[in-house]
């Protein structure tokens, strides 16, 4: 008894000590947004001299022409449809794979699993030329349309796994009651899948929000920039980067993710745990 208690103290000490390293960058980021630029580089103090919001106000205005109101709006305009389309298309496609025994299904499923491992780097150049031909560049179509056509095999696979956990008897009894396949899907299965759909939506939100390479390639006018590109641009202006403003905007840009995480922590953790995928 005494021994196990002693051992736990060791475990706690380790977790707390290590936890300090884990949160240090985030705490430092938070406190630094209240510092002046001079303070940021001149002082070694961890705590800001006073809690001023200048960095937020000036950072938000940016260069004066396009503000962060615009960048936030762009980001939501890009991300929200991607999330909705991904969840919708993935659910329908997963339903097809999980519940029907159609011709060529085995081959198609193998291809689906194969695309899980297809590196984005290999297809990004032809995608760029394709979107260029379609005149989709500098719009959010390169993000929305692939989401609409189930180009995220990871979520399809995740939802197929979830479907397999729902008893087929549900479908069968609804068929006997005269329901069609689509009605079974919408009326019976969708309500049962809410947690899985929500969790898929959360991860897609997170990944699309944080995505940098795709916007960098497909979006070229500042007016259409999402947050990721706006932040990157703020480093480009030359030697006199207002670091405190950049940090303030950086913090604001990840704030929606943190809020979402605390509101829906259960879905994040269970979403990871139940599917056993993605690290």
């Amino acid at each position, binding site marked *: 008894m005494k021994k196990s208690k002693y051992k736990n103290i060791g475990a706690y000490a380790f*977790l707390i000590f290590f936890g300090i390293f884990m949160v240090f960058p985030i705490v430092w980021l938070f406190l630094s947004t209240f510092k002046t630029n001079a303070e940021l580089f001149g002082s070694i103090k961890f705590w800001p001299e006073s809690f001023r919001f200048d960095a937020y106000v000036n950072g938000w205005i940016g260069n004066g022409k396009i503000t962060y109101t615009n960048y936030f709006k762009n980001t939501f305009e890009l991300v929200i449809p991607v999330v909705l389309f991904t969840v919708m298309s993935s659910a329908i496609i997963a339903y097809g794979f999980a519940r029907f025994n159609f011709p060529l299904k085995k081959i198609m499923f193998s291809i689906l699993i194969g695309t899980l491992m297809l590196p984005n780097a290999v297809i990004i150049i032809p995608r760029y030329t394709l979107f260029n031909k379609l005149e989709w560049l500098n719009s959010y179509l390169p993000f929305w349309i692939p989401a609409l056509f189930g180009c995220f095999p990871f979520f399809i696979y995740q939802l197929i796994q979830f479907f397999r956990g729902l008893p087929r008897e549900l479908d069968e009894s609804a068929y006997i009651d005269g329901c069609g396949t689509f009605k079974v899907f919408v009326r019976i299965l969708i309500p049962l899948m809410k947690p899985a759909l929500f969790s898929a939506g959360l991860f897609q939100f997170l990944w699309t929000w944080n995505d940098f390479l795709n916007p960098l390639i497909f979006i070229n006018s500042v007016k259409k920039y999402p947050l990721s590109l706006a932040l990157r641009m703020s480093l480009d202006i030359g030697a006199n980067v207002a670091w405190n403003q950049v940090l303030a905007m950086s913090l604001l840009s990840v704030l929606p993710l943190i809020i979402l995480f605390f509101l829906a922590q259960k879905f994040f953790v269970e979403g990871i745990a139940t599917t056993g995928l993605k690290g």
Partner: protein
Amino acid sequence: MKIDTNAVVKDKKYKKRDYMGLVYVAPWVIGLLIFQAYPFISSLIYSFTKYNIASMEFIGFDNYIRLFKIDKEFYKSVFVTFGYVFMTVPGKLIMAMIVALILNQKLKGINIVRTIYYIPSLMGGSIAVSILWKLMFMSDGVINKMLAQVGIVGPNWIGDPKTALPTICLLEIWQFGSSMVLLLAALKAVPKELYEAASVDGANKWRMYWKITFPAISPILFFNLIMQTIQAFQNFTSAFVITNGGPNKSTYVLGMKLYTEAFSNFKMGYASAVSWVMFVLIMIMTIVLFKTSNRWVHYDD
């Protein structure tokens, strides 16, 4: 007779319904052909051409010959990429494993700890954190100032070719939280009876880990290993934002090389060749991992 017709009708009805499956997967088939298969094959074709949006000219294996024979930058890039993969993937998984094992000991307050450790994975991939990293690890940044307080002269983290890559790897390893949550869930699913039986037999913790725990979670570990390796090979954001490939190309990963050739130099054909070499390297790594997997990955069924 009556039963027979019923059976036929039933059979036919099922078949008809099964064809509905094709309707449901149709969007995926379209998406696969247009946004995945077509680009995949195109990039292979591009890799044998000199292509810059405006014009395309077939040049056979010239791009590949140039990559392997002339372009010294390319070898460096491959070397740096392997360095990144071999530091981040094991680093992340080992950290995740250690902390998950500690958290699995029925400690109180585990939820808070789990949350704190998870937050870096939440935002770590974002540009915001790359910027933060760049600022913290500057030669006169907060890390070196803190080291100076305890009398250590810190290195020029991102300015020195020796430390630049490890600094970027550290950002990735810092995000081990999501792997940890995953492993923790896997650990919780291991049947308790196995441990009880083993402790009756007098097995020690170390032995229990290797005989019970590790085999039980090995499929999840393996899947993570594969997916993270594929991801790590393609890393771009942190190298681009924190060091821009430098100093002295010490963080010029293949993802950077690909981006620079394609979208700065507009050598789309050459960049496609880079992407296919990257793809082949990923395939080789994946096959090697699969080959070794039957030695250490245990599936129940």
